[in-house]
């Protein structure tokens, strides 16, 4: 139990003349009354000391009670008539326990890094387990965003930036090293606070990411690295990602509602800046991906997979985003199976793009269905929404690069459908659309059945 400030008063002889209920209860349980000396030995000792020295005294004290103990932070302020007692952080624990039962520092596992940064996300410490990947040098005092590339999670979010914005713990932030190929790690961090409740940074671990869980293929395929376009794309990616990340971080800091020094309208501007920064970061992802799939060396890996299983997993991932608009997402039944050929991560990427668009352009409270079918040679996955639909003359251009159909400011980059169709075709399938204005849209992904 944690109570707010508890007050009490003693006279010059150290007798308790007034006490708030929690303290008075302890005092009475010990068999003493008001106007008698304090029953709790540690507290009595501190009061005597404060009265004697006429100097404020502050301590963490422990007070026993039946079946447990109370710990609290006590401040005693002496004056000419006695002393005021102020008690905070009152912790009533049912049995004797050590306050120091956990260490804020733990050692990394062999495959992990342990890291720490300050409130500005500048790296203060990086320790690596014996079997963990090496990290780039130098890192001391540099912005985390300069040392590592941040990658969005399957929902398109950046957990680190979100955590920093909300001053909260975070996990699942995928990072890669921007100066030595791809050694992706998943970063998690616990917010650190000083004695005044001031946020002062993060401490956490980074563990190797499981490639199977990641729907993004590396934007820099090692086999294609010789391609000049890819190198250019990689440089653009590196050049943009860190400064955009910095813009988001600082804008989020300015937009934090607990910073009283920033005017409310400026906070709104900062929020807009952070939102625009996130949009730019997503665009960088898309541009990098586009460069990748347009290279002559690009090959999608094709292997047997269960399209129904991938669909169920993706629907599950997108359910949170759908719920934010009160949209019902309906995927295939748990027993459904549809074996086909394809790259499961790429299929998931396509499906997330289709579902993301469907959620974005569907009205609140509507439904989105994901259906599966098969023909002699192909498996079909169709995402059907209840949005406004797409006019026939625009259905042919919707898969073009940067084609937004006149829409602006909705978070899209105009590259998602283009990339999705290129990926589908690279796997031997296709992506098409059917729609009637006012009756929603149906996007169909086809993939070859297992040969």
């Amino acid at each position, binding site marked *: 139990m944690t109570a707010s400030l508890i007050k009490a008063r003693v006279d010059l002889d150290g007798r308790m003349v007034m006490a708030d209920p929690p303290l008075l209860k302890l005092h009475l349980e010990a068999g003493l009354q008001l106007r008698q000396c304090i029953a709790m030995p540690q507290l009595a000792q501190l009061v005597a000391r404060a009265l004697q020295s006429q100097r404020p005294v502050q301590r963490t004290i422990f007070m026993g009670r039946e079946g447990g103990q109370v710990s609290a932070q006590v401040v005693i302020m002496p004056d000419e008539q006695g002393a005021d007692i102020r008690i905070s952080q009152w912790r009533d624990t049912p049995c004797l326990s050590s306050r120091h039962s956990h260490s804020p520092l*733990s050692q990394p596992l062999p495959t992990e890094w342990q890291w720490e940064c300050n409130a500005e996300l500048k790296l203060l410490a990086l320790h690596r387990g014996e079997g963990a990947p090496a990290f780039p040098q130098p890192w001391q005092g540099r912005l985390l965003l300069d040392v590592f590339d941040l990658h969005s999670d399957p929902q398109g979010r950046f957990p680190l930036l979100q955590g920093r914005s909300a001053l909260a713990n975070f996990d699942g932030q995928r990072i890669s090293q921007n100066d030595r190929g791809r050694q992706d790690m998943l970063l998690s961090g616990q917010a650190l606070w000083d004695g005044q409740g001031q946020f002062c940074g993060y401490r956490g671990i980074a563990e190797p990411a499981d490639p199977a869980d990641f729907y993004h293929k590396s934007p820099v395929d090692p086999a294609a690295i010789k391609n000049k376009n890819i190198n250019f794309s990689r440089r653009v990616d590196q050049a943009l990602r860190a400064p955009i990340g910095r813009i988001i971080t600082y804008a989020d800091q300015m937009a934090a509602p*607990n910073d009283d020094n920033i005017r409310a309208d400026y906070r709104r501007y900062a929020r807009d800046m952070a939102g625009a920064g996130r949009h730019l970061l997503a665009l960088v992802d898309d541009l990098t991906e586009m460069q990748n799939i347009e290279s002559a060396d690009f090959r999608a890996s094709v292997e047997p997979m269960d399209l129904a299983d991938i669909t169920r997993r993706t629907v599950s991932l997108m359910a949170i985003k759908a719920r934010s608009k009160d949209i019902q997402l309906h995927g295939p039944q748990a027993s459904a199976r549809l074996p086909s050929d394809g790259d499961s991560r790429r299929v998931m990427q396509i499906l997330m793009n289709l579902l993301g668009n469907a959620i974005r352009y569907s009205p609140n409270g509507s439904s989105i269905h994901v259906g599966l079918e098969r023909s002699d040679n192909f498996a079909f996955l169709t995402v059907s929404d209840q949005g406004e639909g797409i006019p026939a003359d625009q259905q042919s251009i919707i898969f073009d690069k940067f084609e937004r159909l006149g829409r602006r400011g909705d978070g899209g980059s105009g590259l998602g459908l283009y990339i999705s169709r290129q990926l589908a075709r690279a796997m031997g399938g296709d992506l098409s659309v059917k729609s009637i204005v006012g009756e929603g849209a149906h996007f169909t992904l086809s993939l070859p059945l297992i040969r």
Partner: protein
Amino acid sequence: MNIWPASVDQNQAAPILAARLQDLSLSMHGPLMGRLTDEQRALCLGIARRSMVNVAAQIDSNIPADLLWQDWLHRGIPITDAWVASCFARAEEHRWRTQQGSQASFQAADSRLGADGSKHPPRHNMPRYGNRPEVADAYLQLQLADRRRFDPLGYPALAIADLPDEVYRHLLNEVARWRLRDISRDMRFAADLGQSVRRAWEGRGSLISLDDSSRLFYERVIASHPLSDEANQAVARQDWLAFIALASAAQGCSYPMMVTRLLTANFDALAAWLASPDALGLRGDSLAALEACLADVRGAAALGEARE
């Protein structure tokens, strides 16, 4: 040339570090410090080992430090008073800040809970030195120097830059001596080893120590702000790194010396200096908070609650 320190008899195993630490603590006559706990001894011993490992790596990354340490444990660790004092100060500071870190986390968590237990946003998200970039930079350097005092696994250690000259020289000599005696008697190898020791000694000059960082931080603080404000703020935030850095630089003593002084001195005597406007100018509430936390650390030592 006899490279053993005068305090160590070559023909007889030196007293083990733990026993020496006990002697040291007794000699300090600090309140509640008459007996070291097992944890304090273990921390000191671990820090001594890691400082040796650090020094050995400066000479030759192939030196089998584990073997060396086992050998020292068997034959007796070639300790010196200065080395022991460095380990002791680092260990006690680690206990202090680890313990207070736990409490700060608890208190910060409490501060974000309303009376009804509901969560509220934290109270502050202000850049610590937002309008004083030169102080912010010095504080960052101080934090980096502080974090260098951990080994790669995150255990407390002594950075090469923070070892007193006599301790560094002593450890270089001891490690080189062990390497020479137990690994090879080849004269060419000995010459290379001598070169390595010399390079290690000379190379340390470019490293930034915690004392350097503390002085820089102190100078930049007093150039832009009243020192007493900063010191009181550091206590209120339980930012003991900043507080010790300011106190040591203001007093003109080393950081570890200030740690030992704070943790062992009679607080009433210490308070007079800390409150003096010519020194740190701590207010009554800050003195009370500092005394409370020092009492916790001393109390934990007496109860044997400290841990690594």
